[in-house]
């Protein structure tokens, strides 16, 4: 991923590179490819958001416009990431969209109770998937006005 770690509009946290590839491709189609940053586990995501470790150059205040978060990830899973974001006053307002293969009600409920902004089940079919990603990108980046 060659994109800059600054001025990130969409932070994609996805451990599956193939899924990530599909998402990135769709976001690129709607010209969101340049302001996108992809990370493949929860620990990296937290470092990135809070400007720690590898991403110490980053400032917490430099918030992404939306975080697309997978739930099932190694080390720190998506729900943990979500909780940490929501627990911190500086980050709690960042829109988070959970994108997952899980249709488990448990996951949905937990996600919403932790304050997720949207919960999207990744469909198997490419058409539906790309449609969903495109709509998400459009909505959160171009339409939605997040509080600054």
């Amino acid at each position: 991923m060659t994109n800059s770690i600054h001025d990130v509009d969409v932070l994609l946290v996805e451990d599956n590179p193939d899924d990530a590839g599909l998402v990135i491709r769709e976001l690129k189609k709607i010209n969101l490819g340049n302001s996108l940053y992809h990370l493949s586990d929860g620990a990296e995501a937290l470092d990135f958001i809070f400007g720690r470790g590898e991403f110490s150059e980053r400032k917490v205040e430099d918030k992404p416009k939306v975080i697309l978060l997978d739930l099932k990830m190694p080390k720190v899973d998506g729900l943990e990431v979500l909780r940490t974001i929501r627990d911190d006053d500086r980050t709690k307002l960042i829109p988070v969209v959970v994108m997952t293969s899980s249709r488990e009600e448990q996951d949905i409920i937990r996600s919403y109770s932790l304050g997720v902004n949207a919960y999207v089940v990744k469909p198997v079919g490419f058409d539906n998937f790309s449609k969903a990603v495109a709509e998400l990108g459009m909505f959160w980046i171009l339409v939605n006005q997040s509080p600054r």
Partner: protein
Amino acid sequence: MLLKDTPIRHKLMRAILLTSSAVLLITCSFYFAYEFFTFRNTSIRQLSILGEIIATNSTAAMAFDSREDANEILSALKAEPHIVAAILYDKEGNPFSNYPLSAKTTTVLPKSDFEERYSFEESYLVGFQPVIQGNKRLGTLYLKSDMGAMYERIRLYGIMAVIVTIISFLVAYFLSKNLQKSISKPILALAEISQAIAKRNDYSVRATKLGEDEIGLLTDAFNQMLEQIHTQNQEIQLFNKNLELKIKERTYELEIANKELEAFSYSVSHDLRAPLRSIDGYSRILIEDYGDKIDDEGKRTLQIIVKNALKMGYLIDDLLAFSRLGKQNVTKILLDMNAIAQRVTEEMVAQNYKTSEVTIEPLLSTKGDSSMLRQVMTNLISNALKYSTKKEKPVITIGSYHENDYDIFYVKDNGAGFDMKYYDKLFGVFQRLHSPSEFEGTGVGLALVHRIITKHGGKVWAEGKVNEGATFYFSLPVF
């Protein structure tokens, strides 16, 4: 109260009192009778002796016609106060002399009384004694004895018998009252203990043995029985405890297994879908980005790959829905089945089956889990629509009726139907009676219906005939 229901002490006392009274009564009666007859016989003998003496003494008076002498002899009867009258008759039966002298009679003695005879007449003993000298009958002596004495004595005996009976009865009563205790006390004690056991279920108590007799043996046997029950109870309790432990163990194991299964299905839903998504996604990318470099056959091949990836996605979704059902609880509320059937039908007909004619008869309202029964209706109606697509005019009827505390619903179609031979496979998971080329489907729909209805305490069954249609029924308990 019936005799068999009286307490044992009353029975014992009754037995003792009746026995002693009977014995006493019989003894008294025999004694009484003996006295009566003895006294009668004695009286007769005494009177006959007296008669003989007087008759013998009066022979000369009779022979020599001496009334004075006869009177004198008869007057000696004064010594016997119970002789109230005596008359000497001559050979012909004419009165010759009489006693007491004042009681003169002129009545002639009939010939029938010439013979010796002693008998009781009313309360008198009368005797006729011939007066004989040598072998000549000189006359007849008549004696009349008052039996008042005898009857007086008999009355006395009777009174005494009654008094003795009463006294004996009282003595027997008080004796038996105490004596019966030796029998009834241990029995009553035993009865009390057994009652206490029946009331409190306490098998650790023991009856006290009061002697080595049969009741003692009974007590021993009773205690032994209690001991056995006690030990058996303990064994059962121990067994139950072990069983409970085992059940807990198994439940725990089951819970673990369930959790593992949940984790497994979670993994399946997540991890199985991801590669499919990639297969599908990248195949499409291939078609989109490199379409001009792939020939038609290549494109067709890629389409097949995409199709199968999607199909596997549906399979996984259905399977997950099916396994999720196992965990879900049934929340029963009163449901308007008409509304549900209407909504489901409208959605589906509008989507894919515009030529189908669906008739919804007025349906019963029933109790069940809203989302689950919606699922059931969806599956059945979609099946009916799906399998009747090949008919020129697909007709589907949805109805219900009430039977034996069950609300029964059915969905009837005139479609492909099925062979009753394979009925067993109808409701199995992944079991299909039609090939995917004929009708699409995962083989989970009816299994899901079966599972939901079973969870509701109802039943699912079907009737069908190849190419003539099928009717699927499900029943829900009213209570």
